[in-house]
């Protein structure tokens, strides 16, 4: 290596289609990372260049085509926020250069576990979606006590969308909840784009569960759900906690749901909790004249920095084995927490000391951190629909 030839950083990103708003944040994060690195004189003295490819609505066909192109361009690393539909790990696993993604999907980590030889270059710099299920089963049932609310029964409603990120998490939760003696009384699978939640709310109304859990990545669907939930139960009441997986972290959710979301509980398994977050945010605002808009504005940077650290340690860029080995053994304190990769499937470990899952409750249009205790800022309260 050496010299001043460019290092090419490949980035398959969802720049058009339904995921474009995250894709835009990923692009900005990576562009800022590359620019800042270049301003520091590049990596190992070589300038970096970002090469992006649009994976649209995450169709397998597109990811493959983009993959072929990036490889053809001779990229030395591939980093994305997410470009998943269960293929990207396979596409880039075929090669040797490191591939870092935050798909948060078991589909993309299990291949690594199954064939570590071949897919050893694939890293997921966040925990997989099942961690949500595990965490929710461990903590949701304790939330009531903290509020001074006693669950009226042991019934749970699950509303999930047919997407593995949500399904696997919800199914894990159901499995663990049943072990604790809970009963699933509503178990609805929908597709994305539900506009009328009325019939499902009716089912909930009939079953009168103590917990309503909602697993759907689409902020529009989630906002509609909580708005219609509020319309239905706002006055007449429902003696239940409402929980959502991740989606309220997408800014549109609150914009759309407005006051209907007051009292909602939700969790995210990646959060801007690291020491550098505030500084990062200021640099972002300076560069883009606006605030970072989603978690991918932060976490994508971790992927980049992990790679940079590994390369610097290796002292070379195209010595892929070395770089990959360094990533595997890294302990990196990033914006989302401390990244340490699991040995089996190379995803960031989750937990309070690694990448923590945070519990939020929405009050006064703000997301207040109500757990775990290490990060807690506020006390959970009884939501308004509990009369």
């Amino acid at each position, binding site marked *: 290596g050496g010299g001043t030839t460019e290092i090419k950083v490949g980035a398959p990103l969802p*720049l*058009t*289609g339904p995921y*474009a708003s995250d894709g*835009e944040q990923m*692009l900005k994060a990576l562009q800022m990372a590359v620019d800042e690195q270049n301003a520091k004189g590049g990596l190992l003295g070589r300038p970096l260049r970002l090469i*992006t*490819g*649009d994976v*649209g*609505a*995450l*169709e*397998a*066909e597109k990811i*493959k*085509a*983009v993959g*072929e*192109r990036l*490889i*053809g361009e001779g990229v030395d690393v591939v980093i994305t926020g997410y470009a998943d*539909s*269960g*293929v990207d790990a*396979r596409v880039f696993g075929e090669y040797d250069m490191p591939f870092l993604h935050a798909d948060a999907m078991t*589909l993309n980590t299990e291949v690594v576990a199954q064939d570590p030889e071949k897919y050893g270059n694939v890293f997921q710099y966040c925990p997989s979606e099942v961690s949500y299920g595990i965490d929710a089963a461990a903590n949701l049932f304790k939330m009531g006590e903290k509020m001074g609310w006693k669950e009226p029964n042991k019934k749970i409603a699950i509303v999930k*969308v*047919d*997407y*593995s990120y949500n*399904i696997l998490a919800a199914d894990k939760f159901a499995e663990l909840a049943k072990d604790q003696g809970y009963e699933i009384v509503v178990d609805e*699978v929908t*597709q994305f784009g539900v506009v009328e939640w009325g019939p499902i709310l009716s089912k909930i109304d009939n079953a009168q569960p103590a917990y309503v859990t909602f697993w759907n990545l689409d902020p529009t669907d989630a906002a509609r759900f909580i708005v219609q939930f509020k319309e239905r139960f706002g006055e007449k009441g429902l003696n239940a906690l409402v929980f959502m997986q991740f989606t309220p972290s997408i800014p549109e959710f609150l914009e759309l749901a407005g006051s209907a979301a007051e009292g909602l509980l939700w969790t995210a398994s990646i959060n801007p909790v690291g020491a550098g977050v505030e500084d990062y945010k200021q640099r972002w605002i300076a560069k883009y004249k606006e605030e970072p808009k989603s978690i991918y504005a932060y976490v994508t940077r971790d992927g980049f920095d992990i790679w940079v650290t590994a390369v610097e340690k290796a002292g070379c860029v195209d010595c892929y084995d070395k770089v990959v080995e360094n990533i595997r053994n890294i302990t990196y304190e990033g914006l989302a927490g401390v990244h340490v990769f699991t040995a089996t499937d190379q995803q960031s470990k989750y937990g309070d000391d690694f990448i923590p899952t945070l519990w939020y409750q929405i009050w006064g249009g703000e997301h207040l951190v109500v757990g775990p205790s290490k990060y807690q800022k506020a006390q959970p309260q009884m939501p308004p629909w509990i009369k």
Partner: protein
Amino acid sequence: MKHVNWKFALAVLVLVFILLYPWLGASSYTKHLFILFFIWSIVAANWNLMMGYAGINSLGNIGFMAIGGYTAGILAKSLGVPPFLTIPIAGIVTSAVVTLALGLPALRLSGIYIALLTLIFADTLPSLLTQTREITGGAMGLHEIPPFYPGMDKTGAYYICFVFFLVVLFIIYRIVHSPTGMAFVALRDSENFAYCLGVNKFRERLKVFALSSLLTGAAGGMYVHALGDISPTTLGIEPFLLTIAMIELGGVGTFLGPILGAAVIVFGNEFLRLAGTLRLTLLGALICTIILFYPGGVIQLFHTIEHRVERLLNRKTPTT
């Protein structure tokens, strides 16, 4: 006579080029694009056979392709059936399912209702896939479907798809130039007169419907073995719109049209990926511009060139 010769020569030249292309320094990426082109032009050509020739306003052909793709994928993946069997089975299953559930009832209806029924049929599939998550993988689809043969590389897939492409085009050519093809023109011009001359519209259409869904299903089989994945995103709006665009951009109801259209869309779409967020904006603008200047589609551009060339040839040899 002369114009037949140079067109023929051009066609042969193009085919020879495609045949030799993997040896002319094609990258894995461009071979990949050609594979996509072969498969999508087959889907488009069959769709055109239905819509442009037989006047069956189907909007569900992507669905047919998906049925074929899933059939082949499931057979190969879960049951270990070898690909040379899964592809014909995919075609036959697709044709049988689609013809029975859709063709028999829909073809008795008038054009726009066929469009409606086929559209809804295609929109039903994602729900069914969700319901059968254990076998079809639900929203995440099927992955790691075995290739045509173990250890297949891009060149192998390239040639297999190319041969398939040629065979299907030959079949379509034969249909279009058969009495069935003539019957469709007759039906389009005057349905009642054709009926009174003994043309059974329903039967002729059913024939084409069955055949064309068979070939589309087989194309779905080719798709999964060549690419290795299929998921409900294949049934999404973008593939749907782009395939319609292929047919119409090339020139509806012409033999070469959908192939030219597929070439423009597949290669154009890939090329525009360089434009990042502007990709679809530019693609839309491209479609609009082409159609404003060549309302007959790309094929019209070809005819314009043809006229020029012919005039040139005639000028050089002013006899005959």
